[in-house]
């Protein structure tokens, strides 16, 4: 890893990081607030009427809901809004770090220095991990702040919350590792980004639909999001196997990227 490159990367991304962290912290703050303020009423309406099936739909991904504090915490991590915010760094940063720099022509300025492509790759991966960890920590901070301000902090289990954070960081680092492998495989941003986004959306859809539709429930293990179940973790049912699967996929993606990137020809940018 290159300290010079890592420092440059973190410095260059600091304002974007601040904006995303504030956004996701606000999102994390709101969900315990909604739970504390309207959760019980919404649950009564949903369970007492024709909307009971909606409960299943709302809790389909990661057990997320606003009916319990654990559910609202889960929702803060797996809702499409938070995933979109984290994807700025989990997907956007790795794609910009290699394919983006390649397309702009700045990669050859960097690689003209005495630094190997593998070090560039590992540094980009480390930066992705740090960005994701900070963004997820901001989410966590928002949740704790919301729960504290609206007097439901006594329901929080901080030890389990930290496991949720670690699992979320691992999930998005896995996505980041896949994005970086795609980024190392293409000269331009669009194909790399397109493939990773399609893969992520399909994975999310499989987990969501598999939870609602028994006929495709068997597909759920093919989704990354299946290996992040925050509500189960908050309930004390964390599965170490989830972390093993995500770590295995990450390792495979990193191994592929470290193999392909030094072997690629970097012709003049067109």
């Amino acid at each position, binding site marked *: 890893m*290159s300290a010079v490159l890592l420092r440059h990367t973190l410095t260059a991304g600091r304002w974007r990081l601040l904006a995303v962290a504030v956004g996701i912290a606000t999102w994390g703050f709101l969900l315990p607030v909604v739970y504390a303020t309207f959760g019980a009423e919404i649950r009564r309406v949903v369970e007492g009427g024709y909307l009971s099936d909606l409960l299943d739909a709302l809790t389909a991904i990661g057990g997320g809901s606003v009916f319990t504090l654990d559910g609202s915490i889960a929702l803060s991590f797996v809702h499409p809004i938070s995933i979109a915010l984290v994807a700025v760094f989990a997907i956007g940063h790795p794609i910009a770090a290699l394919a983006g720099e390649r397309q702009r022509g700045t990669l050859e300025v960097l690689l003209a220095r005495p630094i190997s492509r593998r070090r560039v790759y590992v540094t980009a991966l480390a930066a992705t991990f740090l960005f994701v960890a900070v963004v997820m920590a901001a989410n966590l901070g928002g949740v704790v702040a919301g729960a504290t301000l609206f007097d439901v902090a006594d329901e929080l289990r901080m030890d389990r919350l930290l496991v949720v954070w670690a699992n979320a960081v691992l999930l998005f680092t896995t996505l980041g590792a896949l994005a970086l492998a795609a980024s190392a495989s293409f000269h331009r941003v669009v194909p790399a980004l397109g493939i990773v986004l399609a893969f992520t959306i399909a994975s999310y859809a499989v987990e969501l639909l598999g939870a609602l539709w028994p006929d495709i429930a068997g597909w759920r293990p093919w989704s990354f999001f299946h290996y992040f179940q925050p509500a189960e973790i908050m309930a004390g049912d964390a599965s170490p196997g989830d972390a093993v699967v995500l770590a295995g996929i990450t390792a495979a993606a990193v191994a592929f990227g470290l193999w392909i990137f030094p072997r690629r020809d970097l012709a*003049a940018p067109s």
Partner: protein
Amino acid sequence: MNAIETIGLSKDYPRGAALGRFGPGWRDPIRALAEVTLEVRPGEIFGFLGPNGAGKSTCIRLLLGFLHPSAGAARVLGLDTETDGVAIRGRVGYLPGGIALYDAMTGAALLDYLGAFYRRAPVLRARLTDGLELAAADLARPVREYSRGMRQKLGIVQALQHDPELAILDEPSEGLDPLMQRAFYEILDELRAAGRTVFLSSHILSEVERVCDRVAIVRRGRLVALEEIGALLARRRRTVEMRVDGPPPSLAGVPGVTDVVVVDGHVRCQLEGDIRPFLAAIAGSSVTDLTIEPARLEDAFLEFYANGADRAAANGAANDADAAAGGHDADRTEP
């Protein structure tokens, strides 16, 4: 030990275009560089000439390890480009053609950042920024506000600020005005005086003629000439015109003199090689006016692109050269 050595260096690209993959000859790769063998000696300024698309940048990218050779090998400062890329780049300064920079950074921050990767201190930065008239106020501005010429100056500084043993410069004076070109040539002269080696790719022929010791000409990926500039020019045929008062000199049989035409005291001929036999032959005549066209690299260059599309490409390069040379031509002295 040579600064650069290539032996049969070749690079093939697979056909990239979708239709090209299925069209005639789809199995054949595109040969960007074919069996180039050359040596660049330590301490010389070496010109690498050719029109756009001839293979200059491909060769440079192979030397820096950005590309992997399809055949052959290259050594830079005695190190193998395939296995010692990091060590090579630690001792080399590189200016890419049409350099892209980080627009959000200031010029000074960019130089600090790019210089921080080297173990050598940026000992030449002050000299380079002074010579290229990059003031502190300029360097404090974001790169996005820079003109093309200023970006090129910054590119030159980042390539040379750590006083590399070998500078590889791809079209270095592109975008520089004539005054800055002259300042850049002075920097090259200083590098040569300090014993540094410069590998300079260009299609600006007057520039190569002005600064280089030796030149290689590449055509469709193949090396077609590798010579001292002086030797290349000495072999050029030049037009001689003179006016004589009285009988014209007898030039038949004088070594190097051909195509002699005499009309009313006006003598015109072609002269090639050593000038002394010609001067001896006209010594007894009453010459009132004499013009010997200067030997120009441009003519030598065009000779290697004698046919069709190649010639058009080379002419384009030569025309670019004339346009880019600008006021620099004023430096040339007529013999």
